Every structure is written in C-alpha cells, then in structure tokens.
C-alpha cells in the first residue's frame, strides 16, 4: 500500500486504536516551558503518580522571561513563581532543565532543533501551538493543552484521532525579497485561518526543497495559523546535515540505523491526500497583514480589500479594520508605524537576523520607531555576535535584547502600547496579542527591517 509521509510516521507510533475513538499515540519527545506545565505537574501530584520517562522531556524557560537583565532576579512575582515551579518540578522528576541564563536556554521551538531533540520520524509535542515548527524535519509535531501535557508526563502517550491529510505544493522559484514567511502568509491568506482545520499538512515542491532548514521551520511554524494540526516536510540531505552531531542526535551505529529509516520517510508516488492545493512561486510577493488574524494578509504593494470581496462575516471584517484603524481600499505601503519586533519561534533564528542586517547595513534606524530585536536562543545570540551582525546592528542604531518569546505574546514587559502599530515577525496579530490595544502587522524580517529604517510600511525590494 502506498502511504504519505504523515501516515508512515503516525502509524509507526500507534500503540492502540480505539474503535470510534482516538489512537493511542506514543510520543518520542516532549518539550515543556513554565506557562503550560505547572498545572500538569500539580495534576500528577494530586493523582499520586510520577513521570514515566523523564529522559524524553526537556524543559526551558521562555514564555514570560524578561529580555533584558536576565542575570537579575525576575521582578514580576507571578512570572518568577512559574519559573521557580518549572525548575523545581524538573528537579523533582529528573527532567533536563535549561533555565534563564543557561547556554542552552531559548524559545522552546528554537532550542529543540539546535540540540538535536528534534529528529525526522519522531513524534514531538509541547504545550504551545507553534510546536508545528519541528515538522520541518519530517517529524509529526503539534501543540497540546495542559491536560495532555499531564498525560505525556504520566504515560508518554496522547490520545488523538488521526487527522486528515492535506498537501500544499508550490513549484517554481521565489523572487528576490520573497522569504519563507511570505510563502506562509500567502498560503494562509488563500486558505483562511480555518482552511486546514482537522488536517495535517505536507509541504512539497521546489520552493520547499530549495528552502533552508530555518525557512522550513518558519513555514511549518505557521501551519497552525490556517487551523492545521501541524505541517511537515520530507527530510533530505539538508535535514541530515543540520541534525548531524548535535547533542541529542543519535551517534555512531545508532546514527547509521536511524539514517536507514529516515531515508524511507517520503510520500510514495501514488499516495492519496484528502485534499491538495497547488500554488505558483511567481505569484508570491512580500506580504503584510492588515487585520486581526493571520489570514488577513496581502502583498505589500496591494490595497486592503473591500468587505464586498471578503467571504463571510462582513461585520467581523469591519470590526477588525476598526480595531486596526484602517480603511477598506487604502494602501498598506506608506503607513506610519511605531514599533518593530524581530524575534519569536517564527523568525528569531540566525537567518532572520542575517536578513534584517542585510537591509539595515550602512543605514540608520528611524528615530521615532522603537525596535526590539530578540534572538530565539542563546546560541542564536552567540552567533549574531560571532558573525559580526551585532556590529552592523549597533552601527545602524539598534540594540540586541536577550532571548525569549518577548513581544510574540507579551507576557513579560515587552508590550506594545494601546493604539500603536507594530511590524512584527511573530505569528499572531490577534487583538491585544502584543499588549492590550496593540495593533500588529505581521511580516518577514526584510519587511520589518525596511520599516525600522523608514518608520513606515515599506517594500523591502526597494532596499535590496
């Protein structure tokens, strides 16, 4: 029988199938952080049970950590409590813990790949919806709720019905200035935020094959924003090259054995998907969002659509534009902005900082714009320094902050004030996501860089 990549990995992890119910799915690797795990550990305690396989869980502090002065005690009492709870729970149960300041610390979806925790053919879960990031390696990775975190700690399994399968194929070559982020925002604008609900997506075609691992992570990361359970890309030489020699990657004969298996991880030629979409690389330009969900995105040279052209809820559409302070039919390019945020598990990796630096090199930051540059991990921070990117940023008037989720969800102090506009490389532009009343324009690191220089929404192709 011919199978898809997704079938192969999923089926290899099913311990039991419950009739008219979920599959019992074995989880290879489990990532936890301070926000969605404390109640799960409390649940274990109340049931009087322990962690079944502590060596399969990895803990990092990222969601509500400060991005300056990380060497000082955390000021916010509630955040400090969560960080302490994570550390204590990890210690009590024998789980590896990379707390604030640890050289391996960083955003959970950045440190997984960096440390070889993320592997092809693995099942990976985390109490954060952007766990789909790890699908870039040919893993099945998805976000779970706290009850499920407890479930994985207790029994290393979760119970899920098998999702349906979708393939998104894009052939051709991306134009200059068009990044993986634009590809993802383009797909979401076509499918809408619920277009892939109930599906697991495989990305195929030239565009994804040509993409770097960082780029693939950006695309898979955003799968969840069209409602998908997750997204994945078949592993290839680039994948193997990336994971080789990392801390938790198999070594020696284990590596050889794993490689044999990994090479089988691709969709068979005659395998069938429940639904397929095909797009052209040439149709994609740098994207920007104008509304309050990630599906409300357009090419940066386009105008905000009229509500007449929008399917469904006209009142919801207008509520959204009102919130943003934008009008139907107006241009995005040239709109004044107040903040720029480069970071998050979507675009906080080294390649994103290289892209940003490419634009700002030799120029000066717009004076009236506040810019937060937040690396995804300490390793990324280190690399920014080693590659001389920090010097370029400093010369252009920028400062680098310390790693964490930061303004992606604004649980720490990095909040965009009410009414202010922020061009952000993160993943969600929901009302208040970046702080109460904040207005978010999602875009690529190139678009973010162009805005940081001009103080306006600017087509980065003019600056390349």
């Amino acid at each position, binding site marked *: 029988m011919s199978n898809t990549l997704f079938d192969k990995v999923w089926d290899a992890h099913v311990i*039991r199938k419950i009739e008219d*119910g979920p599959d019992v799915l074995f989880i290879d690797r489990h990532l936890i952080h301070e926000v969605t795990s*404390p109640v799960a550990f409390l649940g274990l305690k109340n049931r009087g049970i322990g962690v079944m396989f502590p060596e399969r869980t990895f803990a990092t502090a990222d969601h509500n950590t400060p991005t300056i002065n990380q060497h000082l005690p955390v000021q916010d009492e509630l955040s400090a*409590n*969560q960080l302490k709870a994570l550390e204590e729970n990890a210690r009590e149960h024998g789980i590896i813990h990379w707390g604030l300041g640890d050289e391996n610390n960083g955003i959970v979806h950045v440190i997984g790949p960096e440390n070889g925790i993320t592997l092809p053919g693995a099942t990976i879960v985390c*109490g954060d919806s952007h766990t789909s990031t790890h699908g870039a390696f040919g893993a099945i990775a998805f976000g779970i709720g706290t009850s*499920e975190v407890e479930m994985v700690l207790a*029994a290393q399994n979760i119970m899920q019905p098998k999702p349906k399968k979708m393939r998104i194929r894009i052939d051709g070559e991306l134009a200059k200035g068009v990044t993986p982020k634009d590809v993802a925002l383009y797909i979401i604008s076509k499918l809408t935020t619920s277009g892939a609900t109930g599906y697991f997506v495989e990305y195929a075609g030239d565009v994804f094959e040509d993409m770097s691992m960082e780029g693939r992570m950006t695309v898979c990361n955003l799968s969840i924003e069209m409602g998908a359970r997750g997204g994945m890309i078949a592993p290839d030489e680039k994948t193997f090259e990336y994971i080789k020699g990392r801390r938790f990657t198999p070594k020696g004969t284990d590596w050889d054995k794993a490689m044999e298996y990994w090479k089988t991880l691709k969709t068979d030629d005659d395998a069938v998907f429940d639904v397929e979409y095909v797009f052209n690389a040439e149709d994609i330009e740098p994207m920007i969002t104008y509304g309050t969900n990630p599906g409300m995105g357009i090419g940066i040279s386009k105008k905000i659509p009229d509500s007449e052209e929008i399917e469904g809820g006209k009142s*919801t559409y207008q509520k959204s534009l009102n919130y943003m302070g934008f009008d139907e039919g107006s241009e995005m390019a040239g709109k004044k902005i107040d903040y720029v945020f480069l970071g998050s598990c979507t675009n906080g990796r080294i390649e994103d900082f290289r892209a940003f630096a490419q634009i700002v090199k030799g120029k000066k930051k717009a004076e009236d714009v506040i810019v937060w540059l937040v690396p995804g991990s300490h390793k990324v921070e280190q690399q920014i320094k080693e590659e001389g990117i920090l010097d370029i940023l400093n010369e252009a008037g920028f400062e680098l902050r310390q790693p964490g989720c930061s303004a992606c969800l604004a649980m720490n102090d990095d909040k965009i004030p009410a009414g202010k506009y922020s061009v952000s490389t993160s993943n969600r532009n929901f009302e208040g996501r970046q702080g109460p009343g904040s207005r978010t324009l999602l875009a690529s690191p190139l678009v973010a860089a162009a805005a940081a220089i001009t103080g306006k929404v600017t087509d980065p192709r003019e600056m390349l």
Partner: protein
Amino acid sequence: MAYDKFNILKSSAYPLPIENVDTDQIIPARFLKATERKGFGDNLFRDWRYNAQGTPKEDFVLNNPRYSGKILVGGKNFGSGSSREHAAWAVYDFGFRCVISSFFADIFKNNCLNIGVLPVQVSEEFLKEIFEAIEKDPKTEIEVNLPEQKITLISSGRSESFAINSYKKENMLNGFDDIDYLQDMKEEIKDFAETRPF
C-alpha cells in the same frame, strides 16, 4: 483532573455572534501566570468584558443581566489560535458546561473535551436560529442531550444531532479522562518504548 459528569443539560444561553473568536480573546496571555488552576473564570473575555481601568463594559454580553445559563453560543471558527488550555478552563470556571458553534478550532475542542466542557457543532442555519431565538427571548432554553447526541431549541422544538466519538462520549458521561485510561496500559507502553530507535 476529574470533572462533573455530563448527561442532559437544559439551560438558557449567552450569545456571542462573532466569528473567529481566538483564545487570546477568551483569556489574554497576561492572565496565564498562575501555577494553579484557579480563578480563570474572572478573566474570561477580559478585554471585551472590562475596560482598561477594570470597570465592566456594559454592552458586553457577559455583563448583560438579561442573559444567563451554562451554555455559550459562539460564531464560526470558535477557539482558534493559541493552544492554551486556560481558555477552556476560563469557560468552565465561569460556569459554562457547553459551547455551541458551527465550527470549532481543533485544539480548543480537544481541550474542552479533556476538561468536561462539551463542544457542540451545529449547522450554520441552526446556529442562526439559536442566535435569533436568544435575541427574541434571552431566557429561551436549549437542551443538550449527550446520550442521544441531540440538541433541541425548546421554543421551536427544532433539533439537530451532533457528532462526538464514542470514546469521548463515555468519558464525558462518566467524568473520566484519558489519563485514567492510559494508566491501565502501562506495561504495553513500556514494551513499546523499548522498540523506539530514539
């Protein structure tokens, strides 16, 4: 965490006819800092419910004394966005046991089922009818019958059946959760783990 059993619920409902309600609206991130599952109901729809000074916004449905009940009726694509289970907790802690919509986001639906809130998916037309009925009479009652998988608008007598897999249904009827189930599989799980290459 065990929850109350769900059988037949007959109640009036709160209407929220907005599409794509995401979990950042259901519970904003800044309220996720607790290390215990307590008090989330107070911050359900925080920024829609209160203004920045913390005074209630009178026009928001949860602040409107006309409405009451254990059912929340939401627009299409309810619960999209962040996987935070806190959103489902907030819904539960406020006193809801059932959410009705014409479409739910995946993770939110799962989270609800895991903690004892029943997500009921109805057709677009029926959803519209429910909204209209509540608008006409805020005290109008809806019956959600889990054993028969049937939802009825009492005033018109119209009903629809809804889907739920039989495993989750059993759990809801008995107040069980998945961990109870997995505890009985320990040996099988250990054997399986032995066979994993990494």
